[in-house]
């Protein structure tokens, strides 16, 4: 959309103007996750944008150095809090890589199921919020309805809607409920039809299209240089997805496509996320077919890392000792360092962890995918108008807990 009043020259007197500085955030409804943007504008046009992150600093990495390895899981829930299960699984994945644990087949499928459910909620939230910030409230409510379906299912499985703390080193807190597959059979079609409807609401809407198309463009080459990953990178046309490029869990046994965009603008990011939800639903359908119905969830041969069963804890001294040692001192992860990475909601979610062989992490460093997208925000928005900050910021899907950690 071209600014209409840009060339109008009302007076002959050319008054010298100073750029106006405007602070958006940190407490601004559209700056979700508490971000401040200092924008300099010339009229409505942005001449300079300065992104300040760090208002939500929780000290995630430092906190991890205080507890045991298992006590990090609740912290990871609060990284990307719209898809906590993916962070749970990502952290478990990294620690298992360091401790050289091969998790059980059933656990792999279970993690994929819960992870893909979480991915759908992540993308639903992002797209819904993006539309809402453009004034389209109905699509927001519509998509959040789909999210409710998934959260209900996740709650049935894990006991919590959002902060599941469900993954464990070497397995999961609990085995799948007997109803999992039946419930997936209900939830998948319900979510699919809601996504269909929400697309109908938006994709013919002139306002939505005008505000999204051609705004916040990023080229593929530059996106790679900035370190983008995930849906935002794919929207520029680069088909990098950790699940395909470095398959983990059982992603190599699943049939799914990696959608890519063409121009890397807001609209493409929206579409890529939409398509990824369909792909996740496709994977879930395959999981219903292929996931084994019985078998252990936790690895059996690593008693120094995996908690014993509760019935043993309460009735045998060996179980009590094992429980005591693991809870009070923590599982001793072999000394070394490792970078474990998975496809999180926003892209490559990496944990660089260092162990000195004790029950407490020596260092946990996270690679939060949205930091890399957010840092290039000034580059994406330059030359656009103030109002474009909002949908573009929405399409970045900055999650404060993960970005500022």
């Amino acid at each position: 959309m071209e600014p209409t009043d840009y060339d109008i020259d009302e007076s002959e007197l050319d008054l010298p103007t100073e750029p106006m500085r405007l602070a958006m955030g940190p407490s601004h409804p559209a700056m979700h996750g508490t971000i401040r943007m200092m924008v300099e504008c010339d009229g409505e046009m942005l001449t300079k944008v300065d992104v300040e992150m760090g208002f939500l600093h929780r000290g995630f990495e430092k906190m991890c150095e205080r507890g045991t390895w298992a006590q990090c899981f609740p912290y990871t829930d609060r990284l990307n809090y719209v898809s906590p299960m993916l962070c749970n699984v990502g952290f478990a994945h990294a620690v298992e890589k360091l401790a050289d644990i091969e998790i059980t087949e059933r656990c792999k499928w279970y993690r994929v199921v819960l992870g893909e459910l979480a991915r759908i909620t992540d993308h639903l939230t992002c797209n819904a919020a993006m539309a809402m910030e453009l004034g389209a409230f109905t699509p927001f409510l519509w998509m959040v309805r789909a999210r409710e379906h998934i959260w209900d299912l996740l709650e049935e499985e894990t006991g919590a809607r959002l902060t599941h703390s469900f993954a464990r080193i070497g397995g999961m807190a609990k085995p799948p409920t007997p109803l999992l597959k039946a419930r997936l059979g209900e939830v998948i079609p319900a979510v699919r039809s809601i996504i269909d409807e929400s697309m109908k609401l938006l994709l013919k809407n002139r306002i939505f299209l005008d505000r999204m198309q051609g705004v916040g463009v990023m080229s593929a080459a530059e996106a790679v240089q900035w370190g983008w990953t995930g849906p935002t990178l794919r929207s520029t046309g680069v088909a990098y997805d950790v699940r395909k490029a470095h398959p983990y869990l059982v992603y190599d046994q699943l049939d799914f496509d990696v959608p890519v965009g063409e121009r890397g603008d807001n609209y493409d990011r929206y579409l890529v996320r939409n398509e990824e939800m369909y792909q996740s639903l496709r994977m879930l359908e395959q999981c219903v077919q292929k996931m084994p119905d019985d078998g252990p969830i936790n690895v059996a041969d690593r008693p120094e890392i995996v908690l014993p069963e509760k019935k043993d804890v309460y009735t045998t001294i060996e179980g009590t000792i094992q429980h005591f040692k693991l809870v009070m001192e923590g599982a001793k992860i072999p000394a070394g360092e490792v970078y474990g990475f998975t496809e999180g909601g926003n892209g490559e979610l990496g944990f660089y962890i260092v162990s000195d062989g004790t029950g407490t992490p020596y260092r946990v460093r996270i690679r939060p995918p949205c930091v890399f997208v957010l840092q290039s925000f000034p580059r994406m928005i330059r030359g656009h108008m103030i109002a474009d900050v909002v949908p573009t910021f929405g399409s970045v899907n900055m999650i404060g807990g993960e970005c500022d950690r």
Partner: protein
Amino acid sequence: MPVIKIDGREIPFEKGDSIIRAADRQGIEIPHYCWHPGLSVAANCRMCLVEVSRPGGRQLMLDVLAWDEEKKAYVPQKKPKLEPACQAECVEGMEVKSDSSPHVALARKSVQELLLVNHPVDCPICDQAGECKLQDYWLENQKTSKRMLDEPVHKPKAVIFGDTIVYDAERCIVCTRCVRFMEEVAGDAVLEKRERGNLSEIVLAAGRKLEGHYTMMVDHVCPVGALTTRDFRFKARVWFLRKSKTICPGCATGCNAWLDYDPRTGEVPRLRPRDNTDVNKYWMCDDGILSHRRVQQDRVTARASAGRTPASRSRRSRRRFRGRPAARRQGQDRLHPLGAARERGQLRPRHPGEEARRQGALRRQAARVGRRRDPARQGPQPEHARRHRGRG
């Protein structure tokens, strides 16, 4: 110095050393329960079994039947006869396999399993939990669960051994360290072992109780939670405590001690001996162990000066303490009477002001007593009181 080899590593030894002592001096731990550096060798727990070959000597081999997974049958096999490292004496050129031998690993695992067969599920209520050898060695050497599913043997619990010590026969592994301590160090053979096998337990000599100046040490020689002091029992969980090096303030011997304190409250629930062969060896007397009480009793913890509200000293010092960097706060290696406590400003030796306050209190008390005794101030005394005083 002559050397032996343990797992390929050269270990110097002095004449007469056992393998475990030579290893211990070099900081190598061979798992053990009944051996204590300050006591005689009993070699009854069998946890320290190692594979030993002596120069020129032939290794003794035993015929055993071992399960063969492929043949699905027991097949005859040979295995080396293991020896207790706490008893086998070092000789030049001896080669010992400890962690590197599968036979030793199996022996440790089996011994550990047997020791736990009748052990009660007590960790949650046991004061030893967190510093218990049974827990440590289970994780290091066993890692499997029980195979015996029968009801364990039940024995007396919470037996009062004396004014200081409580005994739990179910937790006892009958290593006899406590028996040997009382006999050899305290010189009062008041503890003894009765019965055999599953049924054995430690009892008091007939008609006696555990008394004297060295009773609390039995708690510290006990590798498990069978003996606990009535002083520390149920007072704290050890994983909440931090330790700091200290010297016992009890007498001029200056026994080296560990001061265990609770960083959250600033309390000091116990003092325990710290090895120093030149001063106190491994031991401390009851008075010394209990001196932590004296240091905490009757301290000035509130400030009351004219026109000010009293501020809690302990809360203030705790606040000050909280802001310190973790490395200093742990302060574990500081050597000072009452170590880290001094750093927190709470448990330092008595301040002159505290002494002055006590003296003042004493003076006031004396004055009150004096007043009561002064007949001029109190008027005529009843007859019987005067008679009583006259007699005394």
